[in-house]
């Protein structure tokens, strides 16, 4: 930088001071510009959602077009099923590859895996939807919860892998060595000492991935597809909360909009709680006696 040359001319001092105040003010303004819309969205959704929330929302099926009332019970259950399928696929793959990246990272391969994991986390979720469509919907010849869950599972992998890796790296090397020095094999050390020590962090990371998957809409559009009826067979099209919100949001009916806000609130609430939990646990991790 040419800092020195600039500083040498005292005539500039006043200009520099003005510049300083202007830029600092702009940065402060930028801080507010970032936060304000986000907070607004958050509170708007919360407000519209809470006022629209009622028992029916959690217990009733959607009513046909034109009828007031009804709820999203099937979509909530559907989302739970989809996430469960996603978790069954995404969590083991994420955790085990996170273990590989963190614990056996001595070669180029782990760098490649890490890089590809980052890339996968940036692949648009709609693309994952197309992939699930090609791999599951086409062979089965129908939309299904299985395909939707599969897509959500893939979307969970990079998040889970990344958080697992990060949490395992926080485990001090001395604990691994302590365990090995007791004549415990490497794999038992990894599973029963390292993973256990990092478990609270990993669990919250998984919750984070789940919360994110719960709000995913695009990959479900042509996999799980949605359903206005009860459906718990995973080889059939199934309703999901974000799909239902989407359908209702772009509909022309006020009552559906109301219900969509309620659904949006449920999603935001989930995100909020999980993030709170993550913050709490990871803060303890950093300040903890590890």
């Amino acid at each position, binding site marked *: 930088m040419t800092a*020195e040359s600039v500083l040498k001319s005292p005539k500039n001092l006043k200009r*520099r001071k003005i510049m*300083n105040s202007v830029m*600092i003010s*702009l*940065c402060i303004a*930028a801080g507010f510009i*970032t*936060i304000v*819309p*986000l*907070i607004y*969205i*958050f509170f*708007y959704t919360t407000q519209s959602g809470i006022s629209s929330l009622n028992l029916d929302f959690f217990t009733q099926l959607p009513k046909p077009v034109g009828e007031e009332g009804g709820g999203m019970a099937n979509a909530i259950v559907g989302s739970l099923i989809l996430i469960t399928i996603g978790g069954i696929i995404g969590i*083991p*793959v994420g955790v*085990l*590859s996170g273990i*590989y990246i963190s614990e056996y990272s001595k070669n180029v*391969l782990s760098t490649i895996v890490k*890089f*590809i*994991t980052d*890339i*996968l986390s*940036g*692949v*648009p*979720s*709609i*693309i994952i939807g*197309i*992939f699930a469509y*090609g791999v599951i919907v086409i062979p089965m010849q129908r*939309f299904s919860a299985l395909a939707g869950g599969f897509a959500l599972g893939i979307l969970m992998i990079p998040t889970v*892998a990344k958080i697992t890796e990060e949490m395992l790296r926080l485990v001090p090397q001395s604990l691994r060595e302590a365990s090995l020095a007791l004549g415990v094999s*490497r*794999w*038992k050390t*990894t*599973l029963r000492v390292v993973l256990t020590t990092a478990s609270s962090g990993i669990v919250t990371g998984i919750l*984070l991935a789940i*919360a*994110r998957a*719960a*709000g995913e*809409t*695009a990959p479900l*559009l042509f996999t799980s*597809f949605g359903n206005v009826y009860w459906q718990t067979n995973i080889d059939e099209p199934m309703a999901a909360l*974000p799909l239902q*919100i*989407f359908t209702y*949001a772009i509909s022309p009916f006020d009552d559906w909009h109301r219900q969509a806000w309620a659904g*949006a609130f449920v*999603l*935001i609430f989930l*995100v*909020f709680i999980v993030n709170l939990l993550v913050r709490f646990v990871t803060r303890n991790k950093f300040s903890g006696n590890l």
Partner: protein
Amino acid sequence: MEESRIEIKSKKKLGDILFENLTLIFALMIVGLVVFISIEMYIDSAESRERFGLGFIFSSNWDPVKEEFGALPFIFGTIVSSLLALLISLPVSIGAAVFLSEIVHKSVRTPISFLIEILAAIPSIIYGFWGIFVFAPFMRNTVQPILQSTLGFLPFFKGTMYGTGLLTAGIILAIMITPIISAITRDVLKAIPVSQREAAYALGATKWEAIKMALLNARSGILGGAVLGLGRAIGETMAVTMVIGNKAQIMASLFEPAYSMASVIANEFAEASGSLHVSSLIEVGFILFGVTFIINSLARLLIYSVTRKA
């Protein structure tokens, strides 16, 4: 060291070998998955690629009834809305990152970063929903009239004010990617040694000059964050679908409705009529995948280059 020496290598137990390879298999699954996704999309877009060739990218005719497919309007919509988002978001993100890491007091920093983190995790469907019901009307009634009355001589701000359209999509995307870019900028700034800033202060630099120096030193990382944000914007589906207007056209005015690659897939895929239609949509997806792949690779390399050094 002489090669004649005996190296002591401990024997691995069978369990260790098995476990390491088990984790390796799962790790390779991720790599395999990405490869598989590309292959699958390549194969499934074959019909469209054979039929239209490179013309697919340059034709702006998208007509499922006549089975004519050209992706230019979607590419246009995606590029313009994303670049618009980046243009708006980048200065704000950098400013916000500086605000959080250099200006604001520590005790406020943590809760604010936390807040931004939470808000960044809000599902995109909610941004879209809010976009339709709150932001688009605000654009139509307030922002667009002001723009038209002041800058209306520019072709970008001419035409009917629908509320939805390219500009609205760009701004919503900007709101969505700002937390991402500013978080990475903060990480990168953290990786720049404090001693540099102290040296600048010692030379009598003002606060802003010291910050500017740190920003300049961190520029490749910040660029990485920006590119990453661009990647997010390009792939973003639901929020854009809900506010961009979904009209396959290429117009100079940012007030006009447009269409994006992700949105056309979201809207038409489930109901696509013929195999050529599906194949064309998959080709759009394939282009989208390729673009985000390249952009994300670039972003990661830029970010690694700064944070690794630290």
